[in-house]
């Protein structure tokens, strides 16, 4: 009996998060270019809700993870535990990850994500871009397990 279910669930979850990040990013980028992109607004709100719910979960996990390896992360599947650990490692690597999300933390970014202010759009885009990199690196393990290699 193999544990493909873990890899598949993690893979699908990350696919949904990436699609949400792209949806919001395209919308914000078009707005910065002067295109209001109003027909995508409903989908963008749904994408924001998905990311907000992910950030709420991540925030709790990051707090526990930052207490060190001696403190177990409870009630959480191993792939999500690993993602929280990767996030904490990324926060400490300011050379690669220097956006608002990684500098100021998840709570601050959640507020920023819901901001409609034009001047916040670039900061949101930078953070989402770095989150995308982190998720893509994280899902590599799941993708290999689920899709295999050619």
């Amino acid at each position, binding site marked *: 009996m193999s544990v493909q279910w873990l890899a598949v669930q993690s893979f699908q979850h990350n696919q949904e998060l990436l699609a949400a990040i792209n949806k919001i990013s395209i919308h914000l980028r078009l707005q910065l270019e002067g295109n209001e992109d109003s027909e995508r607004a409903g989908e963008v709100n749904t994408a924001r809700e998905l990311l907000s719910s992910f950030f709420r979960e991540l925030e709790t996990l990051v707090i526990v993870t930052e207490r060190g390896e001696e403190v177990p992360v409870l*009630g959480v599947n191993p792939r999500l535990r690993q993602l929280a650990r990767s996030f904490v490692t990324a926060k400490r690597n300011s050379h690669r990850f220097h956006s608002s999300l990684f500098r100021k933390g998840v709570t601050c970014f959640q507020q920023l994500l819901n901001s409609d202010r034009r001047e916040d759009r670039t900061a949101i885009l930078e953070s989402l871009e770095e989150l995308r990199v982190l998720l893509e690196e994280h899902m590599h393990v799941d993708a290999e397990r689920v899709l295999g290699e050619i």
Partner: protein
Amino acid sequence: MRDILRQNNADLLREIELLRERLEKAASAIPAELQSCHDWIISFCAQVQATARQNLADLNLGIDSILPYILSNTQVLTRHVRLFNQRLVGPILRARDSDRLCLKVLRWIHSSHSLTQHIPMALSDGDFASWPQLSWPTIYFMPPSAQHRLLYLPLFFHEFGHLLYACHEPEMDELVKALQSRIAQFLEPSAQRDDRHAQAEAKRRSVIVETWYEWTHELFCDAVGFQMGGPAYAYSFSMYFRALMRDQYHIRPEDLEHRDHPVTWLRIRLLADRARRMKFGADAEALEDTWSKIAATMGVVEDYYGFYIDKFLPSVQQTIDDMIVEAAPRSFEAHEVSTAELLRIESAPIRSSPVQLLNLAWRKFLQDESEYSAWEQKAIEGLLNDGT
């Protein structure tokens, strides 16, 4: 970059279009049990096409700054199509009449629970596993040789446990979390020190506690297996693993860290404990006795290196019992598993459930394995022809 992305999205559109045509042509030939999965795939094809068209429309806006996001969207879509192509389409396009035994049992399993009765499912070849995704059809994997027999069908009950967990994930995770906290308390040393050794010990305790997330999940699925299938599940599970290799009985301590399944011998112990608590003492004893004999022949001594100690048992039992109450799988009925009842009948039509037939199969096999094959063939024919 725009041209590259245009080519990829156009190619995905064409690929899905061809797939959809093939699926529509195959519609009349697929078994009834796969119909809902077929319909889901057709509607998924439409979603994929809509996303590819959106990517093409975004490319036509002519704005360079959004190209990295369209690239990422195209990658997400490509991975989705690949996964879908590899795992979901095959079981539909290559469905055979011989799949019906498994499909019939799987359809019954899904229809036995209000939360799963509308979730489409499919069957694929592979070692026992499942893809319990709430937003996708559940795919069940089974080795081809087992697909035409009765003895290993009860292992689907375990896989169904993964789907039930997914259906109740927040509540289940809370129950697991509470168990992990209790295990952490059990492992807490009586005296606190503050040196390097104490730190290493704390890390080790943390690893043990975290490992119990996956272990509780699997033990819950074993409990679902027994709750639904009765002794047939226990015998099926035991037979499938007992002659595989040494690591079913013993795992080195370093390999137990974050291991996704408990050692199988421990699972047998807990399955036997459940069987005993549900008044199947003789079956529990037979199960444990078999594993002890094989272990003794290999010279294996039972040891879980602190990942499991006897004082965990009451908490583990309570948590798994609570999870069963929360998930509420259909429980076997007395007449489906009673040895006396089973010995009186020669065959058991599926009618309301396949559980009686699966238990009968195990009783027949254990009674006289030389007579079993002929009986099994007849029983499968009866099951497939009973029209339910």
